[in-house]
């Protein structure tokens, strides 16, 4: 090859070399995670999918036999608990997620103002996270497996209950209970919203104020559009948190199927139905929100 040709070829070739080198560096950084995702994630998922379509013939080495959709048939048509529990969880998620988002946004906006006792309120709203994900919360919420209640939610005061009558009080009480539960689970969402609100440039509000906008208008025209990415993130987080939560009856049931009833194949099938629903819900949220999400123009 002539000298000239070499000189011409050098530039693109060298650039590719750099790219490849950088790519290699990236993979060095990723080694631990790549090992982890194969061993602790991909392989168990593969096993779980395989299990849901088969029957275990021998536990040693987990030898299985392909049975097609039998397990799925079983959980839908023979298991009397699965469908009602599943529907309950679906309903709960669909009701709780919007409530959670709205309430945590309102609370975040309230405690984002300059005021006396800001530190106290911020701590107060984060306390449920500390109590949070564990058994403690499950018991305090009165959702213990055997139905014992240590603490019931906020009650409708007796006087008001007398005025409203039984049926209305029940509805109000149900709503209050739901809100209480939802509020206790929105600690992380509030923190994320707070961080998002801090990120909105103050000059936008100043400009709006100069133009004579009221606070109400500023909320709809500035705060809400600017915070849409976090709303989306929180929706996904909330759905996932509700789904993986220990207080969730479906999770409990899958656990029981696995370790009490030892019906591993059906449990695997259940997990997949359950997971696919979570995925569909998150996907739907992302698709619905996508066109409304504010893009600051920063390139990923």
């Amino acid at each position: 090859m002539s000298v000239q040709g070499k000189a011409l070829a050098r530039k693109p070739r060298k650039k590719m070399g750099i790219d490849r080198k950088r790519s290699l560096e990236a993979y060095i950084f990723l080694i631990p995670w790549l090992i982890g995702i194969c061993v602790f994630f991909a392989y168990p998922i593969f096993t779980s999918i395989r299990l849901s379509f088969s029957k275990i013939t021998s536990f040693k080495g987990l030898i299985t036999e392909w049975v097609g959709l039998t397990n799925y048939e079983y959980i839908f048509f023979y298991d009397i608990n699965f469908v009602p529990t599943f529907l309950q969880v679906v309903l709960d998620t669909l009701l709780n997620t919007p409530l959670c988002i709205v309430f945590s946004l309102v609370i975040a906006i309230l405690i984002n103002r300059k005021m006396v006792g800001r530190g106290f309120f911020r701590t107060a709203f984060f306390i449920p996270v500390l109590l949070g994900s564990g058994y403690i919360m499950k018991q305090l919420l009165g959702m213990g497996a055997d139905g014992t209640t240590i603490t019931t939610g906020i009650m409708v005061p007796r006087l008001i209950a007398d005025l409203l009558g039984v049926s209305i009080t029940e509805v109000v009480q149900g709503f209050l209970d739901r809100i209480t539960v939802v509020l206790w689970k929105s600690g992380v969402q509030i923190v994320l919203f707070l961080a998002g609100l801090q990120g909105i440039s103050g000059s936008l509000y100043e400009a709006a104020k100069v133009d004579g906008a009221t606070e109400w208008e500023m909320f709809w025209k500035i705060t809400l559009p600017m915070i849409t990415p976090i709303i989306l993130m929180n929706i996904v987080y909330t759905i996932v948190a509700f789904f993986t939560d220990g207080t969730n009856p479906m999770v409990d049931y899958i656990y029981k199927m696995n370790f009490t009833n030892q019906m591993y194949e059906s449990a695997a099938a259940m997990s997949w139905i359950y997971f696919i629903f979570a995925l569909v819900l998150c996907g739907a949220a992302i698709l619905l929100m996508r066109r409304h999400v504010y893009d600051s123009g920063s390139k990923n």
Partner: protein
Amino acid sequence: MSTVTAKGGGRKSKAARIAKTFSLRLGFYFLLCALSFIFLYPFITMIVKSLMTDDDLYNITVKWLPSQATWSNYDIAFRRMRFKAYVWNNVIVCGVATLGHILSCSLTGYAFARYRFRLKNFLFALVILMMIVPVQVIIFPLYKQYSDWGWLNTKNILSFLPLVVPTFFGMGLNGGFFIFLFRQFFMGLPYEMEEAARVDGCGPIRTYARIMLPMAQAPLLVCSVLSLVWHWNDYFEPGVYITAPAYRMLPSVLPNLYALLNQENHTMIQVNELEGIVFNEAMLMAATFLCILPILIAYLILQRRFMEGVERSGLTGM
């Protein structure tokens, strides 16, 4: 509109305005206090109940203030749940797991934020999938896997392996979330630092360890606090993997205590080790409070910096 009224009675409207802002402010604080009461409600109930005597518990007129505070509940709960023994298990597991998350997730997040490589989008989709797949879905295969490796029923300190090892590989409790957190943060940093380091002949790993990581204090703090809290409260995985009583974690002791209480429908239960002492709801609440006390103290110390950390970590700048 305002100009007309202002001319008519300037002083009066000013007073009205002050009254209006004052009442608005009052309403605002009222709303906040009401909301924070709901948030603190389980917490307050827990503390109040834990101080009650047996008589107070069954006296319906005593709802909030115990007639006299008794600290002996804490003493009994402390001994009953073998707090001293179990708290170290918790400290060890949470400490090591948090360390694992900090190391592995920051590394992975950095690679995703700063490098372009083949299959990047696919691999990042896997991170998102990690966040969405609940551990309950894959718990049985994981259990089987650990059992095949001889990590279960070891009856020594190795019992903690299934809880701790995955965190060093970026997995474990909410590993995907932490990777995402670090990625978001590193994406927001300027490239000049790394370029300068590269020009000066600094290798990629040293650049990461000496330049990028020290700048990442905000997400490191957020990751530590959340990982610590989540591991501390988690009872699902420890409940599945750890069977030896000596290596139980604090939150997985609680279900036993609750079961103990429910057994005889909130009536007298003789506790063998503490002869003649009735285990009641107050002691249960004391035990529950003791369970979260260390993490509560840790949070109260780190609270201000944690909040700042969340704000600075760029998590919200999708």
